[in-house]
């Protein structure tokens, strides 16, 4: 549905040109929910805005539903109003001088994809029902809460029944509880109108829960394009590992194909091919993959609890094991005293090995 080929975008800045998007390729299938994930300035929003036609690429091409909308070389450029898209903005961007109904109706009456007058009312009501705002038609949008404004924006984006729905951090201005609620609803709405979605966020929880696939970006490049599960369990490099979820890192040296030497002694783990014995690597293990039991009864390395953070559903403990400080996530009602001796278990499958220089 969306084909991005060799997309390139360069911005002028005070310190010279900045490559915001550095030649990326991306295919989004029909009906797919694709999430672009990355820190600010990684190029995800620029990519989205290029698809919307709000930015003109400096290189490469974009197709929407088989139609070429951007071709930097060929000089093709379809302006945003003639693309079959809907878009939800980070700031909601609901028009403050119009009420809820007028906001949703404007694309139908003034836009390039306008429909016969007689159908406008029904179509707008349908969109408002979809986002559960029916009954608020006559309200000035400025009277609505942030969550409601974002629903108006969503209704406005889907009211023209676009093939593609673009969302630019739509939840980042909402508070935490509302964000979770809207996240589920976004997914429901995208599925019910069967639209192809491109969703930009810097929030990994959003990305993992919403996306059919997640595209992790940094410095204008795609680092990983995979299902949420793969992104979480098989980060291909240190950046993705750091950015998605939490992980303990420690420097190590390769011993052989199945062992590395680290501050915790020799560790059994799968060393990726290409890491010669003696080469430096970074080891990673997620807090929830480390087991922990009180006392010294179990087998395994011993450690001291340094401090702990109670999170309600879990407990984060800082544990000193040898020279290494590890974060361990303990689920349930376990409690440890500060300074208590614990035994940790570090399963072989939990380890990630990242070659140096990544």
């Amino acid at each position: 549905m969306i084909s991005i080929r060799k997309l390139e975008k360069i911005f002028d800045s005070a310190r010279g040109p900045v490559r915001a998007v550095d030649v990326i390729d991306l295919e989004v299938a029909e009906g797919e929910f694709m999430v672009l994930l990355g820190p600010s300035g990684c190029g995800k929003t620029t990519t989205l805005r290029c698809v919307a036609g709000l930015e003109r690429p400096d290189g490469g091409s974009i197709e929407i539903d088989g139609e070429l909308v951007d071709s930097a070389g060929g000089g093709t450029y379809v302006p945003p109003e003639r693309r079959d898209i809907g878009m939800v903005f980070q700031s909601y961007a609901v028009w403050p001088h119009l009420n809820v109904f007028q906001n949703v109706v404007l694309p139908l009456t003034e836009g390039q994809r306008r429909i016969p007058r007689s159908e406008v009312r029904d179509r707008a009501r349908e969109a408002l029902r979809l986002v559960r705002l029916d009954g608020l038609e006559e309200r000035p949008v400025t009277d609505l809460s942030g969550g409601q404004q974002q629903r108006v924006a969503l209704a406005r984006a889907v009211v023209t029944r676009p093939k593609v729905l673009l969302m630019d951090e739509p939840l980042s201005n909402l508070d935490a509880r509302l964000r979770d609620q809207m996240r589920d609803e976004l997914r429901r709405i995208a599925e019910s109108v069967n639209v192809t979605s491109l969703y930009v966020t810097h929030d990994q929880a959003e990305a993992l829960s919403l996306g059919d696939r997640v595209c992790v970006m940094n410095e204008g490049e795609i680092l990983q394009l995979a299902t949420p599960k793969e992104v979480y369990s098989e980060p291909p490099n240190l950046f993705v590992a750091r950015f998605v979820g939490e992980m303990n890192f420690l420097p190590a040296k390769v011993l052989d194909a199945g062992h590395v030497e680290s501050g915790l002694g020799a560790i059994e783990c799968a060393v990726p091919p290409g890491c010669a014995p003696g080469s430096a690597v970074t080891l990673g293990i997620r807090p929830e993959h480390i087991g922990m039991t009180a006392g010294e009864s179990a087998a395994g390395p011993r450690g001291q609890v340094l401090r702990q953070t109670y999170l309600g559903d879990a407990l984060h403990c800082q544990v000193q094991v040898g020279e290494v400080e590890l974060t361990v996530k303990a689920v349930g009602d376990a409690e440890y005293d500060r300074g208590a001796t614990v035994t940790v278990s570090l399963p072989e499958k939990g380890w990630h090995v990242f070659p140096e220089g990544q």
Partner: protein
Amino acid sequence: MRLPRFNGQVSPLLPVALAPMALVAVFILVIVWVSFQSGTLGTVHSSYTLENYHDVLGDSAIYGVIWNTLWFAFSTVFFALIIGLPIAWLTERTTIPGKAAIYVIMTLGLLIPGIFVAMGWTFIAHPRIGFINRWLVDLFALDNGPVNIATPMGMGFVQGMNLAPLAFILTTQMFRAMNPMLEEAARTAGMSATATLRRVTLPLAGPAILAAVIYIFIVGIATFDIPAVIGLGNRVYLFSTYLFTLTFPEDMEPRYGITGAVGVLMIVVALVLTAWYGRVLQRGNRYQVITGKGYRPKMLDLGGWNWAAWGMIAVYALISKLVPIALVGFIAFAPYVAPPSLEMWEQLSLNNFYNVNWELVWRGMKHTLILMFVVPLAVMVCAFAISWLVVRTRSRGRYALEFGAFLPHTVPELLFAIGALLVALFVLKDYVPLYGTVWLIALVYLVTRLPFATRALNGALLQIHKELEEAAYVSGLTMLRASRRVLLPLLRPTLMSVWIWTALLVYREVTVAVFLATESNITLTAVVWSYWAAAGMTEASVVTTLMILFFSPLLLLFWIFGRRSALAED
């Protein structure tokens, strides 16, 4: 340099934005060009020369003029700040009641033209005809009137009172931006009240006050109306009035080369001062502390001093505006210029109204109305184009645009008037007959009103999130429809206030009108001036009184629609 682009296309707004800047460049360049010319301009009998500069700098008159101008400008700054600063402090940092009323008084003060007040002050304190002097001479049997308003300092006093609202507005912003928590932090850090004042408050306020001083000084050295009304008749010349006598000498052919040379000197001074102003302002902005949500400056409770504070404001309003203007109104009905007395009261009549050339007044009125309609429209269209390109595009060319729109702010408007005059007389004379038309005046007004309008619109556009426009594009609205349905409705309050503010300033503008007025394009203010200059003080008072009467409903209009953003911007 890349042109400002929207999605790769040169915006159709660009020519609209560049047109007024081209005018600015032409007006300034023609002055520079003329200053290096001798002989009959625009003919083969002219040639390049440095003789004009030689003549100007060799004539001792110019040094007297410079001395007078400096005296005048410093007095202006002094009186403006000594009145404006305390009132600003009162409104921003104390519990004085009726703050809205103070704002009304100060805004109106900004709108009432200096020329009217200057006429009133002539009646009050002119060495010969001034009422105070007449009373004092009678009372103490003196030979001469002891008070003389027709000195650089006297005129500086009048202009200082006139510009006190400007000082007020400039420093209110400072008081508002200055976070009292910084002072509280100093106190909790163990500093005494005086140490806090010395080490925290004053250093923080310093740049803003210095910026206000420079700004008022720039306005001061370029003032024409007050020195013209009070000083010309007494042969006290400032830069501006000296330029006027050079451009319109009474008994010989004008030497425009000399005008040009003096004009160039003035441009250089203005540019240097503006550059300094910009640097000081930058330093001041660095001190602005970002204030949190719960930011509520603690107000000083004045208690019984409220009355004294209001007394001071009332005295200021009386002296600066009410008394001078009431006197002008009185003279409009008096048989001759004389102090108000019982005897005079009985002689008041409408006789002066019969002496006024109503055909002339009507003509002036017509031209003023045309200008009040055309200029705000043109200003708004150009300012919108500039602001949109500056705020909404990323090209580096936008900085050039922004600077270009600010430039007219730095050059005194009378120089634009002279530039326009020279262009009409010597450059365009055979191609476009602009000389003696209101359009020539309109072009200068467009240029001089542009900086304010652009700044107001920049501010408003920055407030309107870019995504609101983009949401319209992705909703399928074309640029034109998006502007009509989204952008313009959102900008309407600012556009309204800019419109009315510009119209009001056009109505009251004197300097440009006087420099460019002929029989065929005279405006109302130029009518007042022409009577005054021809010693028709009573007739001038009649027309002024009428102008003030017309002014009142306009002010009301401004108050209803426009005050919000206009106050914050100028």
